[in-house]
């Protein structure tokens, strides 16, 4: 195994040759990133007359706004205008699920600390920001409901309809199980901490036209929201984004507010307006990953087979529904991870709380569901005395030979047809030397009174497709110019994940041209309409296929033209890498294009793709919500200090399934980055609200995402080889945005394994998340006490 210390990646040269699909091409913007030349919205040269908006926020978490005196704000130096709900010509609502529960500006009811009450527009950002603090608001405070326990105690108001998944008779199966246990797990939330905060720049045009540069994963939704708030048609609004400085789900719906306020101000003042909140305000205003409480009852036997699971997933959703419905749904869709439950019932409880409205975050509830599944496994392992990995293996879909059919049905009644979890686990177990290292570690632990080491191998199975089935569509626009260069546009947004690069590779491969001949242009609602959010890991699956469709359309025209022009059979015309084969001729792409133009052939096309096969009946809790599953596994080794709870991840081995990778370097980046982000979620990233509902961890000084030294000392990442997607996805690849985040669950269980060592591996540590040093130490002490040591 290679040590990260000695790691020397071979140099990979920029793409100048053709045949790029499946190659490790560098990110299309890499050279601009490193030179500071990549333009983010705050870097766009200020349009003439630019003004700056800033939001005025509620200082209480719950209650009534009795009065709001904005005279001091308006009187502040450099202030041009103030805006409240009364200034909204359209609808004061930006609810992404059209529940009318998310006003742009609060009017009376205050539902969280940091809720926007008004905006101030100034000549400079500083003037607006300083003035925003001068508002005189009078509140009538009500006690805030801040977490799951409090929400339940207050009657459990839900922000959206809950979901129930059920298969088999759970009560009977539990009753018939040889053994049963109950437990509860608290799973923490997570701030996205995209490095580029929320931002929008609105430029008014003639009549009702409005162009908004928005750092968003969902330009079409921003377009609809701006239109709704301004009271104009969507055709009057154009949203554009070339790149985001990170999204991770935090710019799927949360960008709406900033775009709408900027547009509102631009409309009212007839001048361009930019809105960029300070990092602290960004964290105080915007939603985060949902924290959950998972209450469970498991029926199992002495051989570690799970017979039944009954679990409730209660989530702190915050002050409005936002995406909490689909997020909590996805938690339930992943409450099985890779495991078959003969009888199962899972219920969601999306609770209203007076906190930020929790939202999409890489994994979208899936990680929380999966963390619960791994807790079930751990419970059974400790109850039976079996190694957790053995319990995992015994409960995999498909099961062990001879157990009969039927062990492939999920709690939502989709049959798992592409299961490779067992194979992935087996390969990783072998390559990481799990057994020998575990034995050596336990021996060393016995001789080490303070520092204890732990090892865990956990698998991932993640469902690919939006569970909102209609979202599984995409469009693309491809122009071929007469010099043979190509303009590529599609509905997906670039947030660093390399989507633009991958789709350009698809187009380059399709035409047989170099990446340098393709210009990837900014995502804009004016070029490709009615797009879905770039989310659910779907970006390259959907947009790659849509772009390919556009290329195929153009190629079909070119083939027809060439056949006629050169009097060859259409079958003899093939787009090779670097030239077009026309019968015996080898014709340069540019020459074909030029000839086709002279022959009056349309060299521009749109493309479209809709994911096949999928369907979902939410009321019945049945269907095939996922086109396929992405798999992976990770083995993490940690050392903990039993005096302080401090820990270090010493090594991780990862084997991940990208199908046939479109770009192994970019996929590896997603895997490594996702793992570290997941590790942060489960370890040091802790969100703390005080009793008044004020977020106390609202900046990187208090909210701790991983730094370079938090990387495991040894990182071995491998892509599963020779494992094409069984479905005909683009290049037989698999989605890779979200699944790797859940590889980090191995870290939580390695910590748990180390904690368990203080009790002779007899007491289940039940380590909740985030597993901060304080929580690890508390678990150490509890395990010691319960083990009677």
């Amino acid at each position, binding site marked *: 195994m290679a040590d990260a210390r000695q790691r020397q990646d071979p140099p990979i040269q920029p793409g100048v040759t053709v045949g790029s699909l499946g190659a490790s091409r560098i990110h299309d913007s890499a050279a601009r990133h490193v030179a500071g030349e990549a333009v983010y919205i705050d870097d766009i040269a200020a349009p003439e007359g630019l003004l700056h908006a800033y939001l005025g926020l509620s200082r209480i978490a719950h209650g009534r706004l009795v009065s709001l005196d904005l005279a001091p704000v308006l009187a502040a130096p450099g202030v041009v205008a103030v805006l409240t709900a009364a200034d909204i010509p359209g609808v004061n609502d930006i609810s992404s699920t059209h529940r009318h529960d998310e006003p742009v500006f609060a009017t009376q009811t205050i539902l969280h600390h940091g809720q926007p009450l008004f905006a101030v527009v100034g000549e400079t950002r500083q003037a607006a920001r300083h003035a925003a603090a001068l508002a005189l608001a009078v509140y009538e405070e009500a006690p805030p409901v801040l977490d799951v326990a409090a929400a339940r105690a207050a009657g459990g108001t839900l922000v959206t309809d809950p979901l129930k998944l059920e298969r088999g008779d759970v009560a009977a199966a539990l009753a018939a199980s040889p053994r049963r246990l109950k437990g509860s797990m608290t799973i923490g939330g997570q701030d996205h901490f995209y490095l*580029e905060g929320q931002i929008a720049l609105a430029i008014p045009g003639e009549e009702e036209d409005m162009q908004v540069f928005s750092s968003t994963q969902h330009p079409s939704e921003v377009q609809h929201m701006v239109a709704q708030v301004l009271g104009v048609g969507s055709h009057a609004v154009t949203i554009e984004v070339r790149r985001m400085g990170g999204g991770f789900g935090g710019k799927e719906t949360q960008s709406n507010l900033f775009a709408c306020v900027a547009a509102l101000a631009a409309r009212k003042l007839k001048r361009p307006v930019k809105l960029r909140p300070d990092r602290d305000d960004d964290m105080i205003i915007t939603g985060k990953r949902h924290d959950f409480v998972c209450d469970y009852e498991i029926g199992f036997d002495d051989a570690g087979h799970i017979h039944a699971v009954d679990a409730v997933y209660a989530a702190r959703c915050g002050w409005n529904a936002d995406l909490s419905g689909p997020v909590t749904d996805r938690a339930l869709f992943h409450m099985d991870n890779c495991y078959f439950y003969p009888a199962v019932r899972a219920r969601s409880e999306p609770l209203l709380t007076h906190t930020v409205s929790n939202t999409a975050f890489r994994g979208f509830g899936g990680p929380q569901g999966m963390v619960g599944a791994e807790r079930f496994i751990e419970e059974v392992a400790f109850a039976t005395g079996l190694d957790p990995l053995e319990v995992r293996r015994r409960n995999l879909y498909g099961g062990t030979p001879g157990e009969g059919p039927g062990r492939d049905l999920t709690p939502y009644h989709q049959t798992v047809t592409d299961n490779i979890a067992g194979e992935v686990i087996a390969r990783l177990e072998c390559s990481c030397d799990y057994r020998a290292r575990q034995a050596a570690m336990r021996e060393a632990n016995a001789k080490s*009174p303070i520092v204890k080491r732990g090892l865990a191998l956990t698998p991932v199975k993640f469902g690919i497709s939006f569970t909102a089935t209609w979202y599984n569509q995409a469009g693309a626009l491809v122009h071929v110019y007469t010099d043979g260069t190509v303009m590529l546009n599609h509905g997906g947004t670039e947030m660093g994940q390399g989507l633009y690069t991958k789709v350009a590779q698809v187009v380059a491969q399709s035409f047989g041209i170099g990446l340098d001949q393709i210009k990837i242009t900014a995502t804009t609602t004016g070029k490709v309409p009615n797009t879905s959010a770039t989310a659910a890991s779907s970006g390259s699956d959907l947009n790659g296929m849509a772009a390919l469709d556009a290329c195929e359309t153009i190629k079909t025209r070119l083939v027809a033209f060439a056949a006629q022009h050169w009097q060859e059979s259409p079958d003899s015309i093939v787009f090779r890498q670097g030239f077009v084969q026309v019968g015996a001729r080898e014709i340069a792409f540019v020459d074909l294009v030029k000839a086709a133009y002279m022959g009056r052939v349309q060299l521009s096309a749109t493309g479209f793709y809709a994911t096949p096969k999928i369907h979902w009946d939410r009321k019945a809790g049945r269907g095939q919500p996922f086109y396929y599953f992405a798999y992976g596994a990770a083995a993490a080794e940690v050392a903990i200090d039993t005096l302080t709870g401090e820990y270090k991840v010493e090594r991780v081995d990862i084997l991940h399934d990208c199908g046939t990778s479109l770009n192994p370097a970019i996929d590896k980046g997603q895997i490594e980055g996702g793992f*570290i*982000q997941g590790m942060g979620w489960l370890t040091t990233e802790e969100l703390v609200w005080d009793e008044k509902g004020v977020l106390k961890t609202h900046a990187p000084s208090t909210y701790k995402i991983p730094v370079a030294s938090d*990387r495991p000392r040894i990182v071995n990442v491998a892509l599963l080889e020779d494992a094409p997607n069984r479905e005909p996805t683009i290049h037989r690849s698999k989605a890779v945005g979200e699944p790797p985040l859940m590889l980090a669950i191995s870290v939580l269980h390695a910590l748990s394994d180390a904690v368990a060592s203080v009790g002779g591996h007899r007491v289940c540590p039940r380590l909740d998340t985030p597993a901060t040093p304080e929580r690890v130490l508390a678990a150490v002490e509890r395990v010691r006490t319960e083990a009677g040591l």
Partner: protein
Amino acid sequence: MRETLRFLLGDELIEIAPCDPTLTVLDWLRLERRLTGSKEGCAEGDCGACTVVVGRLDRCRLRYEAINACIRFLPTLDGCQILTVEHLKRPDGSLHPVQQAMVDCHGSQCGFCTPGIVMSLFALWLNENTPSVARIEDALAGNLCRCTGYEPIIAAAQRMYHLDEAEWFDRDAVADTLRALADMETLALTSPKGRFLAPATVNALADLVMAHPQATLVAGATDVGLWVTKGMRRLDPVISLGRIEALREIADRGDHIVFGAMATHAEVRPVLASLSPQLDELMRRFGGEQVRNAGTIGGNIANGSPIGDLPPALIALGASLVLRRGGEQRDIPLEDFFLDYRKQDRREGEFVEAVIVPKLPRDAEFHISKISKRFDEDISAVCGAFLLEIGRDGWITDARLAYGGLAGIPKRALETEAALIGRAWDDAAVDDAILALPRDFTPLSDMRASAGYRLAMAGNLLRRFLIETTRPGVETRVAGLLAEARHG
């Protein structure tokens, strides 16, 4: 008096008057110069997206350091050279080795942190040759990346040394220019937003502080910067101590070391490290590299943070302060300087001139532990620094136990010390000491840790100290320099 701010931006001489005293370097670059490569990620010096490299004369030698542009006031860079990510490409437009290595290794994804990371690596490239992975991680501790998981960035930091190393700018010419800019005049900038005063001598400073007792004294601005960017405070006047060479001096006086108040953490670290590897590790974990390059030993103390990573260690060592008021000096023990939460024994017109740190007594046992949620670049939940003097007979003759994070100020645990003095250094003594801790401290719960954990740590760190001093074979630390030694 000089009324014009002068510095180099790349190789361009910039002269500015008037100048807002608290205009940040980042706002100036982005808004006034349209150099938008440097990014604002947090505006508090924690994420590093704004990192620029500053060249300054350090005793006539040119020294390059990464700093956070977001919390640094532009006028404090008088007489310096600012290099941003825009300055790295060679004149022919080709990428600098640091940039090329980042491209080659897939070191950027969203790219927003990338300019800052490039600049941190550039500073490393300028100053060190083939650093270890641990050292690279240190150099990047002040740079957050949310996309990559850092693996390819570390790979780039290794690869950059294998690319063409030719330097494309003339250091000697820069040094000459900066030397020509240096003068002993007090820099006095006025603007509608306030005054900025930067004396060049200690005497001039003493006079200015007496004349403007309400002035905000700025050292590295790693905290004061946030008063402006987060607190939105207007500071007027600002007196910057940054131009006074004499305040940066570090002198070894035999049994003690005198640190000028303006010695930065980066400058202080090797000197403290020579006293104890425990101090080396404490300083390594102090903020990120950019903060260590800007923040000063005097600023860390005078700022009066209840945590202040350095004061517990200095109190345990028995450090004292030299306070200066006009022509008068007084020495006080550091522990007496901290009166109450954010309240210090600093009189009107007085400033911290120097910190006197005694070297460790022979036969002393010394220990520092810092507990934080994240191991590097985090503020401690609890920091404990312990010095024990143990006689030949094995009895503890003196104990100085200082803690941060347990009270409103960094504070000695006098009751706990008393429980140890006169005892053998063993489990029984530690058990009794731990029982005494609640008499010394009633910690609070906050977002960093609960009161219970804090108090438990106060005791467990004493246990760790005992194990480390009496059972050398036992592994006690999992991360950082003191653990890395194990891993080779």
